[in-house]
């Protein structure tokens, strides 16, 4: 299972009600549902992934995230999850606020644009970064709103969003090493290529 999914699992309470934005084939939802009795819906636009998820018994709604979450009532979910889609939507700030309107907490993961490899690409080679976390060329990328750890935290501060937990992971290696963990902890904005945040509305 993907790293960000493993983390999401740790933060989601059994039997809770979740909304998964950009749920793909519903891998995370299926896991949460079968293991922890979690209920909820996935939103997705890819027709084949939707059908795959439906065949797995999941509740999937075909919807473009750019259309917002107006169809959901305030506080209708315990947790709203969005894995690696924030950078691909038209208005990430509005969607983030909408997630916290319909959910008590939100779990958001996104590729860190300030990862050292990206800095190397742009700073030294003078090219738009292409990496494992950002596998597209500049002309065909769906990632239209890339940001860094610092950028995201500034957005949260501006909108009174409280950061409950944050986690930096590296896609390039799945093996945990003490030195690597220590280094990432020291300089996440430089060394981690994927950011995972758990946020809520400030009381």
């Amino acid at each position: 299972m993907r790293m960000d999914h493993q983390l999401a699992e740790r933060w989601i309470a059994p039997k809770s009600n979740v909304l998964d934005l950009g749920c793909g084939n519903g891998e995370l939802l299926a896991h949460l549902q079968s293991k922890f009795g979690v209920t909820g819906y996935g939103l997705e636009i890819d027709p084949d992934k939707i059908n795959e998820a439906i065949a797995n018994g999941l509740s999937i709604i075909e919807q473009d995230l750019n259309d917002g979450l107006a169809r959901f009532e305030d506080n209708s979910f315990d947790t709203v999850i969005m894995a690696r889609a924030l950078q691909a939507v038209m208005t990430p700030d509005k969607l983030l606020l909408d997630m916290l309107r319909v959910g008590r907490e939100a779990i958001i993961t996104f590729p860190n644009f300030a990862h050292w490899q990206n800095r190397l690409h742009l700073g030294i080679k003078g090219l738009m970064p292409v990496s494992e976390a950002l596998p597209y060329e500049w002309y065909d990328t769906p990632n239209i709103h890339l940001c860094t750890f610092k950028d995201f935290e500034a957005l949260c501060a501006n909108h009174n969003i409280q950061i409950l937990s944050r986690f930096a992971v590296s896609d390039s290696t799945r093996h945990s090493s003490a030195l690597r963990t220590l280094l990432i902890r020291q300089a996440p904005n430089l060394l981690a290529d994927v950011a995972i945040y758990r946020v809520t509305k400030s009381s």
Partner: protein
Amino acid sequence: MMTMNNDHHLNADQLPMTAQSGKANYLQAKAYSTTEGSVGIVTPKVFHSKVPLTLVCNRILPSFDLVYETYGQLNRDKSNAILICHALSGSHHAAGYHSADDKKAGWWDNMIGPNKAIDTNRFFVVCVNNIGSCFGSTGPTTLNPESQSNGEAAIPYGPDFPLVTIKDWVKTQAMLSDYLGIEVWHAIVGGSMGGMQALQWSVDYPERLKRCVVIASTPKLSAQNIAFNEVARQSILSDPDFNHGRYLQAGTYPRRGLILARMVGHITYLTEDAMMTKFGRDLKSGKFMYGYDVEFQVESYLRYQGERFSENFDANTYLLMTKALDYFDPARDFDGKDALAKALSVSKCQYLVMSFTTDWRFAPERSQEIVNALMATKKPVSYLNIDAPHGHDSFLFDIPRYMTAIKGFLSAPFIHDAPTLQPNQSTQPAGAPL
């Protein structure tokens, strides 16, 4: 005049398609269907109920017949049954053929059959003709037993047949379920007015279905929908041959009225793009004739469709079916903007709701009202808005994505309360909490 031949309101082979996307879809669709089998020759059966049926309108039918067809085998624990509900002009003949030289398959033959989306190798499929219809179940063309008491020969119900509702149909379908020994349906599936019946089932008999498939439907008709129905009804009612609905006795038939009603209905099933692509402004003779005979190809097509329909359908049936549509509103007894959510809150099934992008008769927004109401009360529901060029008629086309969704939904595990474990804290992902 009345035949058992089913003339469902949609003729996939004759429907227009739009330029590129439509053609691609259509060709793909054909390829899909030709690889699949047929249920073969089927024989309609009759369920005769002697139990008086009190209808929503408070009138009583002393007895009634339901004509139905079945495909596939019912398993030992009777857990593999799927009920198909038909639309406005549909019948019980959903799949297969009635004889070896029958050229026309049932109205949903591309959906139902061996290895098809509704797979008759796995499921026992039942399709019922509703009361009030003219294809064999008790309706306006049936002899009225009460008319016999005057010492005279019985006459057809005609306009005396009570106005039946979606709820009444569902009740008769539940009676048929009892007769067949089916306590719980694996799924109930319907498109358009059939979708309304499926939805009503989930409210009226929540314990009796596990899955509910609502296609190209609506939680209630809009003012515009009712307006189109009213034009259709007035076409029939104002035909001099209608004779207050007693045309069978009078030896007349409101053919003109029925043709007009069908023409206006047919326009609403298609789209402007589809009609433009198929007919454009093409003229039959290539030049303007400066008269009122058929000149444009689209006029010719509509008249042909109307005429064919008028040969196979009953005017009183058309009237009461359109009223059943108009009356449908399962949220009527509830108040507030969440009335539909309240109405659907009793349901216990998993839903699959589907709409088609170009359907303006029951637009995607209407399906989304159902979906949003279900989600407001945390009901399991999946929703697809399928890109298809054929308007409301799309639900009768072989659209691979649509067929695959239904097939997947019907075979998916039913969501029970899963065993709940504590989140696994032992596996430490690579990475660092900050």
